[in-house]
């Protein structure tokens, strides 16, 4: 709490300097420091607002590089991956002679979050070469075929439970098949015994609900499966590039 309050006070100090005016050569420095204060207190969107007031096209290359880097990292932390990646691309264009190896881990993580695996793999290979890392987790994700939610939905319409099995949840699919088979049996048994109302309104109605609900659930499960795989993979790569896993 105390630490957060100190960061806020420092951010105010930088804002006051901005408000009272200063030489343009110092403006970027002040805004960069202010953004750092906000970043340290977890206010990433506010850090982005500070940096948006900076002039990315003037000053020394090293300071400009820092501005781009901080903007990208704050956008990444704010889960605005498109924005982070566009700033990294701008950095490459504006500062072609800078040492880009520093920005590589960020770029890899960003591309992973955007699920642009092939581009991320190329960047990862460059990163691995520089850092002597033999491990390459990408072949698995590149070979991974995403589950198609529409296909899961359609499969469950053809045969209840099949969509869940396709989505990677075999037992949920098997349970759905058995439930729907039981409801069909109940309906047929009702009609054969001349319980027309019960057969129609209990058996058929419940089957209808279970049949439709099962297909929608299969769609949800396919999406969940894709998201889980991507998240697991991103965490693996994140552990490697940030140095937590040697």
């Amino acid at each position, binding site marked *: 709490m105390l630490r957060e*309050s100190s960061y*806020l*006070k*420092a*951010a*105010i*100090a*930088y*804002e*006051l*300097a901005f*408000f009272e005016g200063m030489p343009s050569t*110092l403006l970027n*420095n*002040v805004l960069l*420091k202010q953004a750092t204060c906000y970043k340290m207190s977890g206010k990433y969107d*506010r850090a982005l*607002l500070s940096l948006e007031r900076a002039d990315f096209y003037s000053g020394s290359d090293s300071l400009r590089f820092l501005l781009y880097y901080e903007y990208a990292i704050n956008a990444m932390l704010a889960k605005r991956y498109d924005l982070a990646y566009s700033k990294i691309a701008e950095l490459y264009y504006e500062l072609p002679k800078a040492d880009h190896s520093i920005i590589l881990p960020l770029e890899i993580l960003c591309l992973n979050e955007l699920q642009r695996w092939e581009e991320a793999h190329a960047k990862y290979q460059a990163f691995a070469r520089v850092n002597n890392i033999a491990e390459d987790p990408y072949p698995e994700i590149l070979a991974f075929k995403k589950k198609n939610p529409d296909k899961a939905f359609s499969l469950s319409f053809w045969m209840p439970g099949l969509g869940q099995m396709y989505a990677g949840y075999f037992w949920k699919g098997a349970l759905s098949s058995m439930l729907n088979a039981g409801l069909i049996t109940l309906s047929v048994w009702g009609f054969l015994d*001349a*319980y*027309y*109302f*019960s057969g129609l*309104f*209990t058996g058929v109605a419940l089957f209808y609900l279970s049949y439709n609900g099962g297909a929608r659930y299969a769609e949800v499960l396919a999406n969940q499966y894709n998201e889980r795989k991507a998240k697991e993979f991103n965490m693996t790569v994140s552990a490697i590039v940030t140095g937590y896993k040697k």
Partner: protein
Amino acid sequence: MRFLLGLSLLAISFLSQAQFSKSSQAFVSHLLSNKMYDEALLVLHEKLGDSRTQQQKDSINLSIGKIHYSLQQLPQSIQFLDAVSSESEFVYEEAKLFSAFNEVYLNRFDQGIKKLKALNGSKQYVQQLANFEMSGVFLLTNRLSSYDSISTLLNPEWNIIQQQHSNFRNYRSALSSEKQKSPFTGGVLSALIPGAGKVYAGRKANGIYTFLITSIMAAQTVEAYRKDGPRSARFIIYGSLLSSFYIGNIWGSALAVKVVRNERRDAIKNQILFDMHIPLRTFFQ
């Protein structure tokens, strides 16, 4: 580095200045226009601790109260607005009006009225605003005769309240012409014809759906009774389900009448609160 050190010293000296000077006010305005509310509050709290005269304190308390008001932190807003003393006349009046509005927003109508009445004897425009706010409270609490008497004191030509005063008259008509539907009648109607109570409450589609479901359940119960007799498990299960649904629907219909009535009142209430806020904002900005 030296520059940054200098900057920090500048900030410390700024934050500890005893005067809540015009430059400080301008900086706070700058923070607010950039939606830096936490920062503005911190600056104001520092200033409040350092202020020496009552007028400075009042001015800062009003600002803090209004920031909390913008952030919808109404209890905190009231706390700071109520700390404004009557020594600073204009600031005091503004604080009292906003504090009263906050009380009303928190459904503490009596507190709101009390604060508005405390402005009796103020300048004419403040009195007009206080009376206008009070007329809103009377509408919110459905005290239509009190509304009628206080609205005669309002100047309908004053542009600050003109539109909202006209809106209030419409709300008054809507409230007085509202049919008082009884939850009891809703329940009785659903007991006679399942779903009829919901139609009476104003939920036509829900009523028809309830009627269909009850009919289907009744058909299955009758079928079980005719084929298996009254002691069969099938009849007991379907009969129990039907009974539960039937009784639940009677209770649900009575509830629906209340819910629909409250929804309608809430919609008007939100409109009234919105209209109470507009003149305050317009006048004091």
